[in-house]
C-alpha cells in the first residue's frame, strides 16, 4: 500500500511566522497535492505538482508556496502565517488519477494564533 506521511499531526504557530508542512510518499508517484479542508467548504486545492521541480496553482494559492526538490517529498510553505490559514491541511499523491486514484496523508491541523 502507498503510504503518505505528513510530518506533524497538530501544529500551533504565531501570526507572521514562516511555516513548513512536509509530506512524503513512499511509492514512485509523480503527482502530489496539497489541500486545505474547512467546515462547509470541503477540500480545496492549494497547489499540486506532477513532477520534480514542477508546480501548478490550485484554486486558493494565495499566501502559500510549495517546493518539490525530490520526487517523494512535497512541502507546503506559509510565507507569513495568518489566522485565516488556520485549517486542516491534507497531502495526497497519485501515480495517475485515471488509474490509481488518490492516497491521502492523515492531515496536519494547523492553528495560527
Amino acid at each position, binding site marked *: 500500500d502507498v503510504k503518505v506521511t505528513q510530518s506533524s499531526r497538530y501544529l500551533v504557530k504565531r501570526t507572521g511566522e514562516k511555516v513548513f508542512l512536509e509530506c512524503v510518499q513512499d511509492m514512485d508517484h509523480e503527482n502530489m497535492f496539497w489541500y486545505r479542508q474547512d467546515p462547509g467548504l*470541503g477540500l480545496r*486545492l492549494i497547489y499540486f505538482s506532477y513532477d520534480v521541480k514542477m508546480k501548478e496553482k*490550485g484554486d486558493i494559492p494565495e499566501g502559500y508556496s510549495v517546493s518539490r526538490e525530490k520526487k517523494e517529498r512535497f512541502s507546503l510553505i506559509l510565507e507569513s502565517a495568518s489566522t485565516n490559514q488556520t485549517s486542516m491541511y491534507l497531502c495526497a499523491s497519485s501515480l495517475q*488519477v485515471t488509474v490509481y*486514484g488518490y492516497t491521502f496523508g*492523515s492531515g496536519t491541523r494547523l492553528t495560527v494564533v
Partner: protein
Amino acid sequence: GIQVEQSPPDLILQEGANSTLRCNFSDSVNNLQWFHQNPWGQLINLFYIPSGTKQNGRLSATTVATERYSLLYISSSQTTDSGVYFCAGGRRGANNLFFGTGTRLTVIP
C-alpha cells in the same frame, strides 16, 4: 473549476438502516471517486468509478456519466460507517480533482 454538489449534507441513521448519497457535477468529469473520512480525519479511497456500478461489501456506487451524477449506497449501516463522505472528479487529461463539500453521516447504535 467544476462545481460538485453533494446531498444530503447531513444524515443520521439507526444502525442497520440503508442510505443513498448523491453527487452532482456541473460539468463532465473523468476520474470520479468516492472517499470516506473517518472521525480522526483520515481520507480513504472507496471507489474509483467514472461510469457504471461497483460493489465492495456493504457499499456500492453507481455513476451515470452522461447525466453527471453518482450515487453511493450504504446498506446495513454500522457505527463504523460514521464520518464524512466526499465525491470528487476531474476533467479528462487533468491530474487534479474537484471535491464536494461532503455528506456527514452519523450512525447511532
